[in-house]
């Protein structure tokens, strides 16, 4: 799970440098696509704190993402945007409070039941926004974009004028999230989460109130999803109920599987590749979802550790051999192979 210290940080620096260079070479359309991919990466990263690190598979994670986006809409006056330094903390806090409530109740259950309870909470929130006029109902609503005001200097973040600025704001947040998670997983707290993923009953027997640890992880993950949702509102200037629904959560799960859930960078790879795949599929065919589905199916079958677990050419063979084993065993596998 943890990045090998030096290599991990070097990889992070290299990856960030590559992503930072992207806007210099591509058309604005692709900068916007890149921003979307960064947002997806943040959502996948936050969800993987639950799935890959703690062993909690949630289908309600999109709710915190969408709720943060709606929060930006709800606190923004009609005529002008608020400062990013206001909207971000408020949106993240709202997501965190919602995660605390949902987590406190749903974490009383385990496994399949947990999956279903999180799904139910997500759908409740979906219908709250879909069936009431709180956020423009089923059609969604436009909002004034937040502004970036720092030290008296004000930057209006209009998409048409500032796609590059928005891209970089997203990149900074994603890199910060990655680094923060790397530190978190290395901490005593992170080690406990890992222990819970591997054998929760034994962790209880050696003296951990695992419920509290899982709830803390759930709230942190919800807040990080809030960062991604806030970024969506900033990027698109539009909110609709789809942001909250289970489809978004399922997509984030697919990205994690696609990229590999045993590493911290896997979800980022997965989100970038998934977004790129969608784009290519759309260019090539009208049956975008079919192509996406087939590619994901093959990746999951051939690379049980996802794109990040790819070791060509031997990796394919080993991948095939390891297919079908439960993730816990795969964890041991990746430990052995380094």
């Amino acid at each position: 799970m943890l990045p090998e210290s030096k290599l991990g940080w070097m990889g992070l620096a290299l990856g960030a440098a590559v992503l930072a260079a992207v806007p210099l070479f591509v058309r604005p359309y692709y900068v916007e696509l890149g921003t979307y991919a960064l947002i997806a990466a943040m959502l996948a990263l936050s969800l993987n704190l639950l799935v890959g690190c703690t062993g909690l598979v949630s289908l309600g994670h999109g709710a915190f993402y969408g709720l943060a986006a709606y929060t930006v809409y709800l606190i923004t006056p009609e005529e002008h945007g608020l400062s990013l330094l206001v909207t971000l903390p408020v949106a993240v806090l709202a997501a965190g409070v919602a995660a605390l409530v949902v987590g406190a109740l749903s974490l009383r259950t385990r496994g399949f039941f947990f999956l279903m309870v999180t799904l139910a909470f997500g759908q409740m929130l979906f219908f709250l926004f879909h069936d009431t006029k709180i956020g423009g109902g089923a059609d969604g609503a436009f909002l004034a974009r937040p502004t970036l005001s720092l030290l008296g200097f004000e930057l209006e973040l209009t998409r048409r004028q500032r796609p590059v600025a928005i891209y970089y704001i997203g990149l900074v947040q994603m890199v910060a999230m990655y680094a923060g998670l790397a530190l978190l997983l290395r901490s005593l707290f992170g080690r406990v989460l890992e222990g819970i993923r591997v054998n929760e009953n034994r962790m209880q027997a050696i003296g951990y109130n695992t419920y509290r640890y899982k709830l803390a992880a759930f709230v942190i993950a919800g807040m990080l999803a809030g960062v991604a949702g806030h970024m969506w509102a900033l990027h698109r200037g539009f909110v609709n109920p789809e942001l909250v629904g289970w489809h978004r959560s399922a997509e984030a799960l697919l990205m994690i599987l696609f990229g590999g859930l045993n590493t911290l960078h896997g979800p980022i790879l997965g989100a970038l590749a998934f977004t790129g795949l969608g784009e290519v599929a759309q260019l090539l065919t009208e049956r975008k979802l079919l192509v996406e589905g087939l590619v994901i199916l093959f990746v999951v079958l051939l690379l049980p550790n996802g794109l990040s677990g790819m070791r060509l050419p031997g990796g394919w063979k080993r991948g095939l051999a390891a297919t079908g084993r439960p993730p816990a065993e795969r964890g041991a596998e990746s430990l052995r192979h380094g």
Partner: protein
Amino acid sequence: MAESRAASAPLLSTSALGRNFGGLAAVRDVSICLHQGELHAVIGPNGAGKSTLVNLLSGHLAPTAGLIQLDGRDISGEPAWRMTRLGIGRSFQRTNVMSSLSVLENVRLAAQAVAGLRLSRLFTPAARENVLVEAARHCLERVGLMGVEDRPCGLLSHGEQRQLEIAMTLAARPRVLLLDEPLAGMGPEEGERFMHLLKDLAREHAILLIEHDMDFVFAVADWMTVMVDGTVLAEGRPPAVRANAEVQRAYLGGHA
């Protein structure tokens, strides 16, 4: 030593402890005392309720009747994690470890759980917490499991995993040790070493031992309880238990 047993207050005691599963009384009306510095063995045929008793004492099951007291304080029904924090450590009959984590990490986590860390310290890097690592190493040394610290513990031999179980239990610095068939799967040599460790541990802890190897039990126990059908058939010092006609008939057979 029967007199000294009566004189000191028990560290852990149960009174009329019971646990039903539906209509089945797996444990009923069990009153036993565990004393500091005493190795208390519980024997009995399969299905006598020994493991259920351990599960009740360790908080893995809640009793349906009776009391569990630690230092005179009622702790019945507390969850497993709190029992461990209160000083009741247990090992499992079937090895139960975090198999993809390293040997050292398993024991270190056990030490961390009871270290009483402040919230801020939870977010410091684990690599900086030498105290916990040293505590873990010490426990591994004590059970004689050396030189495999960095191995994922799923790769240990069966006997080594049994040793790891004990090391993890000790890392929680318990006052009461509940050992559920710790010898299962150990070779004779490991068993010998374990006997020394057990006698050593018995000096500072109150130990409840469940074991099927009768030679071993009679060699180490200070006090014995014989369970049959979920309830106590007899108790006493090993020679008295060995001589007890009822025990002979119910369980020991031709053994003694």
